[in-house]
């Protein structure tokens, strides 16, 4: 299977996963289907009139969803060995990053792709680039502008964790999402 096809397939799986989840919050309850106004509409509550304080709901910026801040705090996407396929577990994280970049068009991200230490170095530069590109494609399919994204691959040159164990390799096969204004 060619790398390009792998990326396309991974992206398709990711998009499907993201769609099916809809506005589900991390706790599993149904959210507002992307309608932030409903989630943050405090005027309909009766607390002010009766003198008791209502429960309140999370206030989020227009275009964002409840729980996005927690998802955006996750800025490292990990990969399986010798592949650039994005695991389905990251669909919500990437959807949240995409919403943030959609809301703030002045923001940009640098996607740094990395590989574990096994194999040859320049080939691993290619592998890190494929991973960064897979994340780039996922963000762009969620509406992020290409001009907001740059990619760089460090291959195996900048490991997050040193050592030659399965654990270290897992931590090093990654794309780091780095924001800048």
């Amino acid at each position, binding site marked *: 299977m*060619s790398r390009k096809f792998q990326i396309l397939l991974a992206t398709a799986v990711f998009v499907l996963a993201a769609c099916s989840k809809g506005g589900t919050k991390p706790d599993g309850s149904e959210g507002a289907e992307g309608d932030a106004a409903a989630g943050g509409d405090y005027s309909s509550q009766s607390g002010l009139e009766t003198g008791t304080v209502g429960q309140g709901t999370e206030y989020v910026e227009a275009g964002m969803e409840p729980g996005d801040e927690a998802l955006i705090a996750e800025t490292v996407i990990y990969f399986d060995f010798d592949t650039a396929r994005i695991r389905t577990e990251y669909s919500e994280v990437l959807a949240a990053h995409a919403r943030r970049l959609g809301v703030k068009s002045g923001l940009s991200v640098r996607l740094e792709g990395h590989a574990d230490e096994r*194999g*040859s170095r*320049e080939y691993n530069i*290619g592998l890190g680039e494929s991973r960064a590109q897979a994340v780039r494609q996922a963000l762009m399919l969620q509406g992020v502008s290409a001009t907001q994204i740059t*990619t760089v691959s*460090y291959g195996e040159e900048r490991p997050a964790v040193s050592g*030659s164990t399965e654990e270290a390799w897992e931590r090093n096969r990654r794309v780091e999402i780095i924001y800048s204004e």
Partner: protein
Amino acid sequence: MIDEEVIQKMMKSALLRLLGLVALIAVSQPGSAQLRIEISRGVSGAVPVAVVPFAYDGRGQPPLDVANLISDDLLRSGRFAPMGRDDMISRPTTAQDVNFTDWRLLKTDYVVIGRVVEDGLDRYLLQFQVFDVFRGSQVLGYQFKATAGNMRAVGHRAADLIFEKLTGIPGAFSTRVAYVSVVRDQEDLYRLIVADADGANPVVIAESGKPIMSPAWSPDGRRIAYVSFEQNRSAVYVQELATGSRKQVSASPGINGAPSFSPDGRWLALTLSSVDGNLDVHVLNPATGQKRRLTRNPAIDTEPAWSIDGKHIYFTSDRSGGPQIYRIPVEGSSSAQRITFEGRYNARPRISPDGKTLAVVHNDRGNYRIAVIDLDRKTTQVLSDGRQDESPSFAPNGSMLIYATGSGGRGVLAAVSTDGRVKQSIGAAAGDVREPAWSPYPAD
């Protein structure tokens, strides 16, 4: 009679020379990154040879113990077993003093004698002779001009000639090795270092807090191309070793990697990426900026290496799934032809100086090892025995491959003869060393 003024002048000049030497050592010693080379496996039946301490005819001390240098070179090759000095019954320095009966008793096959003669201010003559003990006759005799500064290089040259005379293979002791040293402290420090083939005289030619990788020699040994991330993205530079002057030759958006000089030194093959991250092999004329894309495949195409005649380029591609080696003509529009079929991982090709074999990184039952592939017979021979061996580079005489490996959690270098019989371990005192690139023969 020498008057006081002359003596003062001489002392002053000697002092200045000494200061200059100290300054040179201070800038050129990356200390902890200096390599130490040891034989971890030698040839059984290594040839016994005696390199007798050379005579010195001059003032003061000789600039260098040349006999010791030659003896060490021969020892490190793994093909010779030099005799210890304490075991020598006599220490002849002229042909008439060589007593072949004694040397036969000591079971040595060859005796090397020589002398260093001072021949003016910082001018020396190095003379040496090699005798066949059993025939009782001279097999080699040479004389070189030298200075204190180049005495090491001249000594290595002598060792090259002795090695060639006795093995039939040109020596490669007077060549150099470029490598990357990485020290991880509070901040990472990446250095590109060029040292003599015996690890001596290490000189830092580039330094950065960001990765430096993929050093490649020009065929005349005067320039090195490499990749640096010093501007937070990859760019390819070409640096003149003599002057240190440097030119950025490729900084396209995306990847600029894996530079490799053509045999005529005029072109660089390198890896560039398209906007959607597809890596392809290109050729670039660094003088004019003229550039041409060579591979057109959505897979990862990288790690180009020129054939000896400069007509083809070998490269790594994962177009069939995993990485394998392919070959494409530099001219014309013929498609790439797959070269490797044995195993699921073959990457980073390097062609041997005779053009007959390809050194690669090969997955051998889960381990990444250095293998050589016979291009005619299509056979694969695994030469190394580590878990993550990479970056093989041929010595210019084709007899050895230097490569990167791991030892005790650190990156070190190692070398293996292309017949697999001799192994060297090459360690540095601190940090990781990696990506060795063996120089071509120096252009005279």
